[in-house]
């Protein structure tokens, strides 16, 4: 939009590319000329199937992977591929699909968050404790969870912890990579509502990576659809889902099971 063009974007991704060298010397282009912008406080969905490059794109922005082409501007600075400063690492946080894999199995919940706070902020010990309680409350956990180990929490609770840990660092951008995909439906709704509420309370921007179009519809105003490493469609989420212009997007939308839906078979099966 023209009016918004005057305010600089929080995140500007330009011609991002990532090529993996496979054993045997072949190249795999995972991300190809991807460009998009994200404003402060905005929520952008990256939609696609496995192999579409959506997770690789997110990981490059989070600094977990380095790009082989293109540039990323964040908050007016150009981000290097990896080895970022501690402050820019703080400003972009990421929540993964499997919270069990991203929590230290031997560290109690509160101790883990305190460690993070100590690393990035100058807090007194008592202020740290108070902030931990506040953060746990913010994600719907109580004091009784503070001294638990991750394995004693349910999947939904662990994902709440992962979100609390990300929020602890007061990031400007939260990258959520299939953050609600592994959860049971009844719990998924809780976490989804939590994410919606956090956006209403704070100025955090979301980059929401998901294969689930219904979930993206609830969380993101704008979305991009990726296929084979490229953006095939971009725009308002409602427009993309209701009136897809790209053939691949239409296939994705048609594949969502709903009342009266019949599974469809393509003519030729590919390898």
């Amino acid at each position, binding site marked *: 939009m023209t009016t918004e063009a005057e305010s600089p974007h929080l995140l500007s991704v330009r011609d991002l590319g990532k090529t993996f060298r496979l054993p045997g010397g072949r190249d795999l282009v995972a991300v190809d000329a991807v460009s998009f912008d994200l404003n402060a406080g905005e929520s952008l969905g990256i939609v696609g199937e496995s192999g579409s490059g959506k997770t690789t794109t997110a990981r490059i922005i989070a600094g977990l992977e380095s790009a082989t082409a293109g540039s990323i501007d964040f908050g007016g600075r150009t981000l290097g591929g990896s080895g970022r400063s501690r402050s820019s690492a703080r400003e972009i946080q990421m929540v993964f699909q499997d919270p069990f894999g991203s929590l230290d199995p031997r560290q109690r919940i509160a101790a883990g968050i305190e460690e993070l706070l100590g690393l990035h902020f100058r807090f007194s010990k008592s202020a740290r404790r108070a902030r931990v309680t506040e953060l746990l409350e913010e994600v719907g956990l109580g004091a009784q969870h503070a001294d638990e180990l991750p394995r004693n929490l349910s999947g939904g609770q662990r994902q709440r912890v992962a979100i609390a840990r990300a929020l602890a660092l007061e990031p400007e951008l939260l990258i959520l990579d299939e953050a609600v995909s592994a959860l049971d*439906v*009844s719990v998924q709704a809780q976490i989804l*509502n939590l994410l919606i509420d956090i956006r209403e309370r704070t100025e955090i921007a979301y980059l929401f990576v998901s294969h689930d179009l219904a979930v993206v519809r609830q969380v993101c105003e704008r979305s991009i659809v990726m296929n084979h490493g490229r953006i095939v469609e971009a725009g308002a989420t409602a427009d993309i889902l209701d009136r897809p212009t790209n053939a691949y997007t239409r296939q994705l939308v048609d594949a969502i099971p709903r009342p009266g839906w019949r599974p469809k078979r393509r003519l030729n099966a590919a390898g």
Partner: protein
Amino acid sequence: MTANDRSTGMPAEQASRQDLLLAIERLQVTLPPRRRGEARRTVIHDVSMQIAPGESLGVVGESGSGKSMTTRAVMRLLPQGASMTGRLDFDGQDVMGMSRRELSAYRGSQVGMIYQDPRAHTNPLRTLGDFLIEGVTLSGQMRRTEAEELACDLLRQVGVGDAGHRIRQYPHQLSGGLLQRVMIVMALMPSPRLVLADEPTTALDVTIQSEVMAILGEQIRERQCGLMFITHDLDLAAAVTDSLAVMYAGVVVETGPSDNLYSSPRHPYTAGLLASRPHSERVERPTAIPGRPLSAFEAGPGCVFASRCPFATQQCHEQRPALREVDGRNVACHRVEEFGADLTYQFKEAQ
């Protein structure tokens, strides 16, 4: 034979059971305690469901609901030390009373199984051809060349081109969607009368899911084969099955025709599941069910859903309701008569 004994002097209502392909009645499964001194763990409290020949039944539930354990009970492949009570009849034959020989014939030729993760159920060191023909040749149903021909034929039917080449390949050379089609072929090889599919598309992308479901549906219909489709996805199950059984914490809480149950749920848990899905056509805050799904062994003496149910009364917490017929379906809820036609709406309002 058990079937003959039971056909004499049976009540009229039970006589129809003879026509069913699969009849599970008041199934209960317990596992040995994890530690000494603890009690046995109940993983299935009370499961009753039926499949007529050629019928497809969707079994829907969240983690810990006992849906996978139910399929393992049907195959009699429960963990060691498990004990099972209730009735389990396949085509009028008592599965629990089967001898080893009968059981091996039953598993080998009557029931086909498709799992969620095809990679975990194929041998990476053996070709797909070996994998596909092993069962039917070992059981003496077919000769090797005959089995190979059938395998190629079936692979072509499920849309795998160049079948003659594929059967010499190894699992890692195929994509997940393609390998799941090979699993479908595997299940169909002995021409089973019932296929058990446990989350067969959960690990697949949506477009591939659509395709695999279409292929599975085609094959099942053509053969007049029964299908038990296990899934966490109520929308998917409602779209591809004739009837549904909704499970929670080891109990079937509601069963009925799929369209009917999906459009007007009568059990609060079914309504809660429908209310908590994100809406795919508009922005609407999902209504979450508070708490987390309970496992069967955590359930108290009352209704298994009582701790998360907005309508629960004292009676619900103390006394477990049995399935009873309401509006052409079976519902396990004390208060079902009090609810109106739009229970999903009532559930949202109550939260």
